[in-house]
C-alpha cells in the first residue's frame, strides 16, 4: 500500500541544520521568505559542533595578510583541482562572513586590543607560500559549537521554521528537471510529508560513515548525496577523501598527532618500529600522508596486528606515566574507552581514519547546483542549491586545508541563501505544480522496506560496505584492490536493495531510519569506489601505488590527462552507473590564474 503524503508549502526548504543550513536559512528568513529547515537532530547537535580548529579569514589582525595569499594557499592545497573562481570568491568573502558572525554574537577569542585573535594553521601562509600566517579565528576549542549557537539564535529571531527530527527522503524533480522540494518523514509519527518549495537547499554535511574507520558522527550518512544521485544529479570528485593517520581501530576516535610528537612509536605485528624503514630521518614524525601510507603498506603486506591483521600499534608504554598524564591527558581515557587498553601498559590499536569529504553535489560559487547540459558543462538545475560538505563548489579540490571547511559552509551557505532570495524575488509566479509521480520514489522505497521478506540485515550490510571501502578505497590505493573493490561494492549494493527490518512500527523507528540512511550511504560508496578506480593518477588525497612520484609526474600527478573533475551518475533504473568529466575552472574572477606547479611544502 502506498504511504499517504501530506503536502506543505514553503518559499524555501533547507535540508540540514549544521553551519551551512543555518547560514542559508538566515538569508532567506531575514528577506521575509517562508523558510523551513528539516533536520534529523536538534540543530546544535549537528556535526559542525566537532569542528575545533577555527575559521580562516585574512583579517590581518596580528600580522599582514591578504585574501589573494589565502587563495594561493587554497589552490595549492587543492593540488590545482579546485575551481579558481570559487576559491577567489570564498577567500574574498571570508572577512565579511566572519565579521557578520561576530555581529550575530559569536564569542571569538580576542586580542588585548579587542580585535579577533588569530592563530596559525597548517598550509596557511603569507606572501604566496613564504611563511606561516595567523589566519584562523576561533572560539577556544569550541568554534563549531559556538558558531551553531550564534546562528541558531539568529534564525529564531528571523522566524525560521525548524522541523526537528525530520528526515528528508527524496528530491522532487519534474520532467523539465526543475527541483520542487523534498519528501520527508516525521520521526515521531512515521508520517510522510512533501515540502513543496520554490527553492530547495541541501546542507546535509559529509558522508564519512561509508568507511569502517571514520571520525564522522553517526548522523553523517550522505543523505543529500543519496537523494541527489537518485534524482539523476551527478556527484563530483567523490574519490577525494581526507584521512588522518591515527584513529582508534574499530572506533575512529582521533589520537592527536601530539602523541607522536611526545615520543609515541608506531609498531607492526613483529613489534618493529616500521617508520624507520619508510622515513629514516623523521620516523614517526613524518608528514600525515607518509605515515598513513606506511601503515597501510604494513597492513597490506601482512604485518598488521589483531586477529584480522588490520591495524598497527601506537606505543607510548616507554614514556613516563607522569608525562602521559600531564601532556596527553585525554589519550589515556580515549584508549581505555574506545580500545579497551590501558595506554600506560599496552599499545593502542590505530588505523588511518576517514575525516572529510572533498567531493559532493556540483555547484557554482552562487550555491546553485550545476550539471553538464546541451550548451555548457555547468548548467543550473532550477530551484536546487547545495552548500557545505555535501556540496562541491569546488574549493577544496583534491585536498582541503584546515579551517577552510568552516569558511566553506559560511560563505556558500550565505551565497546559496542570497542567490535563492534573488531568484525568488525575480519571479512572482506561484509554486509550480507538483508532477503526478512526485512521491513515487519515496513510496516505492518505503513499500519495499515494509514488505521485504528474507532480506539482508541492515547492520551486516552496513558493516560489509564499510569494510569494503576501508580495504579497497582507503588512504593509499592499489589498482587491483580498486578493481576488485568495484565488484565487491556492487555486490553490497545488491544487498542494500533488499534490506529487511523486523520492527515495522511507526514511532521513532530507528531501524527504519538506519535502513533509509544506508540507501544514501551506498550511493556515496559506489560513487567513491568507481571514481577512484577510474582516476589513474595520484593527486591530493587520492594516492595510488601505481602512480608514484616521477620527474615526469611529480607526486604522481598527471595534469595532461587528469586535470579534470569526475562526475559520477547513477543510472535512472538504479542498477548501474557511469562516469563523465568536466574541466577545472582555472580562471579566477579578477586576478591571474595561479599557474600549475608541483605541490610541495
Amino acid at each position, binding site marked *: 500500500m502506498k504511504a499517504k503524503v501530506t503536502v506543505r508549502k514553503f518559499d524555501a526548504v533547507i535540508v540540514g541544520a549544521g553551519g551551512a543550513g543555518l547560514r542559508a536559512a538566515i538569508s532567506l528568513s531575514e528577506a521575509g521568505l517562508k523558510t523551513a529547515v528539516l533536520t*534529523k*537532530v536538534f540543530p*546544535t*547537535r*549537528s*556535526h*559542525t*559542533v*566537532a569542528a575545533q580548529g577555527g575559521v580562516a579569514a585574512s583579517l590581518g589582525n596580528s600580522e599582514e595578510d591578504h585574501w589573494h595569499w589565502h587563495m594561493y594557499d587554497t589552490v595549492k592545497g587543492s593540488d590545482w583541482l579546485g575551481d579558481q573562481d570559487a576559491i577567489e570568491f570564498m577567500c574574498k568573502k571570508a572577512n565579511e562572513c566572519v565579521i557578520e558572525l561576530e555581529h550575530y554574537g559569536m564569542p571569538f577569542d580576542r586580542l588585548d586590543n579587542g580585535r579577533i585573535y588569530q592563530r596559525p594553521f597548517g598550509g596557511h601562509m603569507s606572501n604566496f607560500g613564504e611563511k606561516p600566517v595567523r589566519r584562523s579565528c576561533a572560539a577556544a576549542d*569550541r568554534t563549531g*559549537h559556538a558558531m551553531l549557537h550564534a546562528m541558531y539564535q539568529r534564525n529564531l529571531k528571523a522566524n525560521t521554521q525548524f522541523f526537528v*527530527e525530520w528526515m528528508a527522503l527524496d528530491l522532487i524533480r519534474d520532467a523539465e528537471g526543475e527541483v520542487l522540494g523534498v519528501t520527508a518523514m516525521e*520521526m*515521531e509519527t512515521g508520517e510522510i510529508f512533501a515540502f513543496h518549495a520554490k527553492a530547495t537547499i541541501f546542507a546535509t554535511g559529509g558522508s564519512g560513515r561509508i568507511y569502517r574507520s*571514520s*571520525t*564522522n*558522527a*553517526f*548522523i553523517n550518512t550522505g543523505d543529500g548525496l543519496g537523494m541527489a544521485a537518485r534524482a539523476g544529479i551527478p556527484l563530483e570528485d567523490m574519490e577525494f577523501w581526507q584521512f588522518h593517520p591515527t584513529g582508534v581501530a574499530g*572506533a*575512529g*576516535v582521533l589520537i592527536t598527532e601530539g602523541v607522536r610528537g611526545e615520543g609515541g612509536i608506531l609498531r607492526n605485528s613483529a613489534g618493529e618500529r616500521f617508520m624507520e624503514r619508510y622515513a629514516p630521518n623523521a620516523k614517526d614524525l613524518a608528514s600525515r600522508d607518509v605515515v598513513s601510507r606506511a601503515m597501510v603498506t604494513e597492513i597490506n603486506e601482512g604485518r598488521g596486528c589483531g586477529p584480522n591483521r588490520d591495524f598497527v600499534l601506537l606505543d607510548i608504554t616507554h614514556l613516563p606515566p607522569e608525562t602521559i598524564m600531564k601532556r596527553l591527558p*585525554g589519550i589515556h*581515557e*580515549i584508549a*581505555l*574507552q*574506545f580500545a*579497551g587498553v590501558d595506554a600506560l601498559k599496552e599499545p593502542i590499536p590505530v588505523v588511518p581514519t576517514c575525516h572529510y569529504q572533498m567531493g559532493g553535489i556540483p555547484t557554482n560559487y552562487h550555491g546553485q547546483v550545476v550539471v553538464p547540459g546541451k550548451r555548457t558543462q555547468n548548467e543550473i538545475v532550477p530551484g536546487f542549491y547545495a552548500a557545505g560538505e555535501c556540496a562541491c563548489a569546488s574549493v577544496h579540490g583534491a585536498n582541503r586545508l584546515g579551517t577552510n571547511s568552516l569558511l566553506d559552509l559560511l560563505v556558500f551557505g550565505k551565497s546559496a541563501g542570497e542567490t535563492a532570495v534573488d531568484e525568488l524575488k525575480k519571479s512572482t509566479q506561484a509554486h509550480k505544480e507538483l508532477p503526478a509521480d512526485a512521491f513515487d520514489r519515496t513510496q516505492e522505497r518505503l513499500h519495499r522496506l515494509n514488505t521485504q521478506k528474507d532480506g539482508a540485515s541492515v547492520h551486516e550490510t552496513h558493516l560489509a560496505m564499510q569494510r569494503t571501502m576501508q580495504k579497497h578505497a582507503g588512504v593509499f590505493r592499489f589498482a587491483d584492490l580498486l578493481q576488485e573493490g568495484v565488484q565487491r561494492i556492487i555486490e553490497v549494493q545488491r544487498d542494500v536493495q533488499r534490506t529487511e527490518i523486523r520492527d515495522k512500527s511507526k*514511532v*521513532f*523507528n*530507528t531501524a527504519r*531510519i538506519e535502513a533509509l540512511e544506508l540507501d544514501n550511504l551506498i550511493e556515496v560508496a559506489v560513487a567513491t569506489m568507481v571514481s577512484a578506480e577510474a582516476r589513474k593518477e595520484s593527486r591530493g588525497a587520492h594516492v595510488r601505488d601505481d602512480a608514484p612520484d616521477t620527474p615526469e609526474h611529480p607526486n604522481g600527478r598527471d595534469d595532461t590527462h587528469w586535470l579534470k573533475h569526475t562526475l559520477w551518475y547513477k543510472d535512472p533504473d538504479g542498477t548501474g552507473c557511469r562516469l563523465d568529466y568536466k574541466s577545472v575552472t582555472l580562471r579566477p574572477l579578477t586576478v591571474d590564474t595561479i599557474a600549475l606547479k608541483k605541490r610541495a611544502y
Partner: protein
Amino acid sequence: MTAEPQRIRTEKLRWHSRRALLELDLVLQRFWQRQPDILGEGQAAQLERLLALEDHDLWDLLSGRRASTDPALRDMVARLRQPAGN
C-alpha cells in the same frame, strides 16, 4: 507508566543518543547494546537529563574530565563510562 508509552520513550531516547560527536555516539551505542529493549522509569529519566546536555559538556562528564554535581545522575554516568566488555 504503561508499557507502550515507555517503549516509545525508550525509542525516543535511542534516537536522541545520535550526537554531534563520535565519542558520544560510541559510548551511547555501547550502552544500548547492553540494555534491555525497554528502559525502566528511573534509568529513562536519568538518561533524558544527560542527553539534554550540550555535547561537549556531556563528553566532559563521560570522559571523567568533570564530575556531575547532581548525585542523581552519577549512577547513569558510571554506567555509561563502563568500558567495553564490562
